[in-house]
C-alpha cells in the first residue's frame, strides 16, 4: 500500500509538467500582449516594445520555455507581468481566501449532505425523500453564480445581515468569518445537493445487501445496523465524493469569488486571463490542477482506509 501511495504521488510530477506545458504554449498563442496591459492605456509604442524586451517576450518561444522551466525548478515562479511583483507572493496572498472558501464549502456540503442523504435513503419513497430529492435536484440545477446573487440580494442587500464585498482582513478572524458566511453557503448548498444524492444512492445500494439482513437477523437493533454497517459502507462512495466533486468545487469557487468579489485565486485567474498576465495565469492554473489531483489522491487513500477489502497492486 505504501508503495502504491508513493507511486501515485510521483505521478503528480509528470501530470503537473504536462499541465504547465499545455498552459504555457496555449497562452502564448494569444494576441494582444501583456506589455500593453502593464503600461496602461496612454503608453506609447516605444514604451510597449521596451517593456516587452524587458520581460523577455521577444525571445524565441522555446528559449522562453526552457528558461521558465529552469526558473520553476529553482522555485522561482516569475513575476506577474502586470504588477511586476513575484507571483509567489501574490498567490500566497490570495490562497487563504480560496482555501477558506473551498474547505468551508466542502465541509458544509458534507455536514449537510450526508445526513440528508442517509435520511432520504431510509425514508425512501416517502414524503421526506420526495422533498429531499426535489431539493437536491434544484441544487444541482442552479448555477453557482445565480445562487450567489440570490443569497447576496436577500441577505446582504435587503436584510443587511452580511457584508457584500471582499474577503475581510485575514488577520482578524471575526472579519474573516463574517465575509465567509454567504460565499461558503453558496458553494455549500450546491455541494450539499450533489453529496446528498450520492450518499442516498450509495445508502440504497447498501441497505439491500445481504449482510445487513444478516445483521438484522442476528438481532442487532436497527440503529446499530445503520450506524455500524451500512454507514461504513456508504462512506466509501462518500469519500469518493471529495475527489469526484473536486472539479465542481474548484469551478464553483471561481464563480463564487467573482460574484462576491473575494480576492482569492479564482478571481486572480479570471483577471489574469483578461489582462494576459501569462505568468500568474500559468501558476494559478497549475495550483488548481494540483489541488484537484491531490484531492483525488486523498480520496483514494481514504477509500483504502475505510474498506479493507480494497487491495492495491
Amino acid at each position, binding site marked *: 500500500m505504501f508503495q502504491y501511495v508513493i507511486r501515485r504521488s510521483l505521478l503528480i510530477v509528470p501530470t503537473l509538467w504536462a499541465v504547465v506545458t499545455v498552459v504555457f504554449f496555449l497562452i502564448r498563442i494569444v494576441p494582444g500582449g501583456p506589455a500593453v496591459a502593464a503600461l496602461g492605456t496612454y503608453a506609447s509604442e*516605444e514604451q510597449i516594445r521596451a517593456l516587452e524586451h524587458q520581460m523577455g517576450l521577444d525571445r524565441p518561444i522555446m528559449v522562453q520555455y526552457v528558461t521558465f522551466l529552469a526558473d520553476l525548478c529553482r522555485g522561482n515562479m516569475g513575476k506577474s507581468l502586470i504588477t*511586476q511583483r513575484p507571483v509567489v507572493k501574490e498567490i500566497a*496572498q490570495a490562497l487563504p481566501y480560496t482555501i477558506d472558501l473551498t474547505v468551508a464549502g466542502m465541509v458544509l456540503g458534507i455536514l449537510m449532505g450526508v445526513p440528508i442523504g442517509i435520511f432520504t435513503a431510509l425514508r425512501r419513497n416517502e414524503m421526506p425523500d420526495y422533498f429531499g430529492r426535489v431539493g437536491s435536484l434544484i441544487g444541482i440545477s442552479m448555477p453557482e453564480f445565480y445562487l450567489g446573487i440570490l443569497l447576496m440580494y436577500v441577505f446582504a442587500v435587503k436584510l443587511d445581515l452580511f457584508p457584500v464585498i471582499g474577503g475581510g482582513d485575514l488577520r482578524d478572524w471575526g472579519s474573516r468569518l463574517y465575509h465567509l458566511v454567504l460565499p461558503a453557503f453558496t458553494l455549500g448548498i450546491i455541494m450539499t445537493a450533489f453529496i446528498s444524492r450520492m450518499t442516498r444512492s450509495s445508502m440504497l445500494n447498501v441497505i439491500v445487501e445481504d449482510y445487513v439482513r444478516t445483521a438484522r437477523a442476528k438481532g442487532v437493533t436497527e440503529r446499530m445496523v445503520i450506524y455500524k454497517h451500512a454507514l461504513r459502507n456508504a462512506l466509501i462512495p462518500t469519500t469518493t465524493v471529495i475527489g469526484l466533486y473536486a472539479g465542481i468545487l474548484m469551478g464553483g469557487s471561481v464563480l463564487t469569488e467573482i460574484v462576491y468579489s473575494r480576492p482569492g485565486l479564482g478571481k486572480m485567474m479570471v483577471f489574469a486571463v483578461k489582462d494576459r498576465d501569462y505568468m500568474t495565469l500559468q501558476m494559478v492554473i497549475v495550483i488548481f490542477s494540483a489541488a484537484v489531483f491531490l484531492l483525488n489522491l486523498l480520496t483514494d487513500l481514504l477509500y483504502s482506509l475505510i474498506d479493507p477489502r480494497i487491495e492495491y497492486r
Partner: protein
Amino acid sequence: MKLRYVTVFAMVFLLVGVMLSASADAREQVVRVALKASDIRSIDPDYGTTTIDYACIDPMFNALVRFKPGDIDPEKIQPDLAEGWNVSPDGLVWTFYLRKGVKFHKGYGELTAEDVKFSLEKAANKDTSGFAKDFDALGKVEVIDKYTVRLTFKEKVPSVLGLLTDYHGGFIVSKKAVEEMGLEKFKTNPIGTGPFMVHEYVPKQKLVEVRHDGYFRGRPLLDRVEFWFMPDASSREMAFRKGEIDICEGEREQAWVDKMGKVPGTVIDIFGPGETLTLHFNTSKKPLDDIRVRKALAYAISREELMDFLGKDVTEPLVSPIPTSYLGGTTEVPLYTYDAEKAKTFLKQAGLEKGFTLKEVITEMSDYRRPMEQIQEQLRRIGVKVQMDVIAHSAYHGQIRKDVNPIVLYVCARFPTADPILRQFYHSKSIVLTPTAITNFSHYDKIDNLIEQASRETQTEKQKALWAKAQRSILEDAVAYPLCITKFVFARKDYVDLGYEMKSTLTLVDTIKWNTRILEE
C-alpha cells in the same frame, strides 16, 4: 437619604455613559474611496497614466504650481511649491522661487532646488518617465541657490505653467528617496511633499495613505485615506449603500445617477471636464477609405439619441474633436446632423446600398462598451452590421494601436487646449504602427501644417483661428465623428466635506486635498 445618593450616582453614570457613547459614535477621520479599476499601474507620478493612478498620486505630491482645486481653468493656476516666478522677455527663461521649509514624507528632509531639478529631469527622460515627450522643448534646469531654480526652454511652449502644474510630469519627488531606493521600489513607495503618504499597498485590493503631519499648508484634517480597487459596478454600489465606502466612482449612465441619488445621505458629484467620446474612422481599411461611406456613417449616427441613451445628466454635446471648454474649441464645423436618408444616399453612391459588415473589437469597460452597443444598433438600421468582440480593456488598447479596428471609439481627456488632441490624434507623426505612433487611428495626415503653425503662434486669436481651421478640416474629410462629452460621476456621503467646490478636475476623480474631512454628526 440613601436614595438621593443613588439617584445622583445613577445620573452621573448615565451622563458619563452618554458622553462616552457619543464620542465613540464620532466618525473616524478616514475616507474610503472606491475606484473603478482592478489595480494601480504605478504611483510613481511620472508613470501614473490611469484614473486610479491620478487619484492615488494627487494627494501625495505637489508641483511648482497647481490648478485651483476643483477648477481646471488654466487662467486660475496658482503657486504651489513655488511662491513666485520671473519670466524673461523672450519667454524662454523661467526662474522659480521655492517655498522654504517644505518637508518630504518619512523624514526625507526639506525640499530644495536640487529636488526640483532632479524631478524635472526625471520627467523629461524617456527612460524614467512616460511623459518625456511633453518636455521636448525643455533645454536645461539649473540650481541657482537652495530655493531658486531656473528653467531654460529651447523654443516657445504653449503653456509653461500648464507643463509644470500638478498633472502628468510636473510633480516633484524626493531626489534622495529615488537615489536610495531605486526606481523599482519607488514605483510602489514614492516620496513626495503632499498631505498624504503611502502606508500600505495590498495588490488588487487597496492602497492606504496616511496623514503627513509636516505638510506645508497645515496638518491634514484626515488621518487616513483608503483607495479600494473595485472594478465591479455592483460591488461598488453595494459597498457604498452599506456605508463600507464613503466615496465611490460611478457609472456614467442616467440610471446610476437616479438610483444612487435616492440613497439617503448621498451627494452626487457630476463634474467636468469630462471625457470626449469620438469615433475615429480608419481610412486605411475598406470601405472606409471612401469618403462617401464615412459620410454615410456620420449621417446615420444620432448624437441626440446617444446622449438620451447615456443620460441627460451625464452628457454634454460635442460636435468638434476639441470641446468648447478647451482653449481653441469651436462649434463652427460641419455637423452631420442625423439624417437617415442622406446616409442611405451616400451608401448608394458608394455602391454599398446593401450594407456591409465591420469587424470590431471593443473593451468590456462600460464607458466604451455601452456607447458602442448603441452605435452598433444605430448603424444596423442603415444596413451596416457591426460584429463586436468584447475583450479586456488593456487588450483593447493594445489592439487598436495595432490598427485592428475599422472604427475606433476613443474616450479621453487631455490638458484643456486644442494642441494635445490635434497632435496625438490627427498629426501624421502619430499614426499608429509608425515608430512615433501615438493615437492617430484614422491615419489622417492633412493638417500637419496647421497644427505646427498653431503651436508656434504667439497671438491667441490667430492661434484659435488656425485650430478652428484644423477642426473644420477633420470634419469636412469625415475622418472622425465626435459623439458627446461624458462627465465624471461620483457618489459621496454627505458627511464627506471635500474642502473645495468641485467643478472640474484633470484628476478625473473626487480628489482628496489636505482640508478634506469627515463632518461630525
